[in-house]
């Protein structure tokens, strides 16, 4: 039994990752739990490096420890829920422990199986190459899944924008749909057309059908980039105190 340096590093990193994972699920302070998760991510990145996957190690740091954890910490700070209630000790905790132990046991059985298989098949000595991964993702086997993943990310992004709106109620969503139906008015009237005489040039097309916008006409030639997308005349009136026509 001889321990080489990578083995030793792997054991140390694995132990730290386990402790950090334990911290994630047991610590009561959400910020401390998030920091434990960052530590676990860094340790896993080191293990990826030792396994011979430098590209994945970089990606782990960039995406997980960078982007995802920033998102977590941002939401924790935004909500101000750093102190969490004590976990209820009862049926859920016992059940969770039992199921987790069962999964761990099954994982152990699988681990010995995989390790034996791995030792048999590891003869080729191939390691990850960025060229190989890029060729798989962009050219060979995973082109279509990669494009589908792009669509998935786009859908997630649109969903997040809708979900994170301030007025997420049924009525708010109906208003959102009404506001954002296609409407040529903002496109026409937001053109910086300062030389317009008495508001007719600045989007006479836009103001033709809205009687409430009559109050904004006087202010329209005063400042070029006024907020004419607001169809309420009151907003435009308060935004331009220099106009003084109201």
């Amino acid at each position, binding site marked *: *039994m001889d321990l080489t340096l*990578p083995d*030793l590093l792997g*054991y140390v990193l*694995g132990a730290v990752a*386990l402790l950090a*994972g334990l911290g*994630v*699920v047991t610590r009561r302070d*959400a910020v401390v*739990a998030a920091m434990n*998760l960052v530590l*676990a991510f860094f340790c*896993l990145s080191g*293990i*990826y490096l030792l*396994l*011979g*996957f430098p590209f*994945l190690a970089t*990606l782990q740091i960039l995406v*997980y420890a960078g982007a*995802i954890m920033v998102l*977590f910490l941002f*939401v*924790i700070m935004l*909500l101000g829920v750093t102190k969490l*209630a004590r*976990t*209820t000790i009862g049926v*859920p*905790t016992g059940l*969770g422990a039992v*199921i*987790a132990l069962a*999964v*761990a046991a099954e*994982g*152990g059985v699988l*681990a010995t199986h*995989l*390790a034996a298989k*791995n030792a048999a098949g590891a003869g*080729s*000595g*191939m390691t*990850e*190459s960025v060229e*190989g*991964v890029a060729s798989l*993702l962009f050219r060979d*086997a995973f082109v279509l899944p990669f494009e589908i*993943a792009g669509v*998935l*990310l786009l859908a*997630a992004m649109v969903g*997040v924008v809708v*979900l*994170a709106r*301030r007025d997420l109620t049924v009525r708010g969503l109906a208003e959102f749909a009404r506001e954002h139906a296609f409407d040529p008015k903002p496109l026409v009237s937001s053109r910086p057309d300062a030389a317009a005489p008495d508001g007719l040039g600045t989007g006479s097309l836009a103001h033709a059908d809205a009687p409430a916008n009559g109050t904004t006409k006087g202010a329209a030639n005063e400042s070029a980039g006024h907020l004419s997308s607001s169809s309420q005349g009151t907003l435009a009136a308060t935004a331009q105190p220099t106009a003084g026509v109201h």
Partner: protein
Amino acid sequence: MSFFGAPVFFLAAALFALGIYGFMTRRNLIVVLMSIELMLNAANLTFLAAARGTAQANEASSYAVFVILVAAAEVAVGLALVLAVFRLKRDSDIDAARDLRG
């Protein structure tokens, strides 16, 4: 014994079990999402450890890239949902979102 034989798979199994434990016992929605991240990382570790030194190392990397990608999308949507629940209920406890309970 070498760390890259059985022990790395045991580590992945233990991390996955920790994730399941946190998922089932914690009551805060944000910590539940963190537990899911832990499980996804354990799956990634298994992928990479099983492909170490074989001819499929690049394929394993690609799969891990997809796992990371799905995790990013899941976290973004999940945290937006947490924000929405918090806005409606003033609480990020998992019991706050029980309106659909029959």
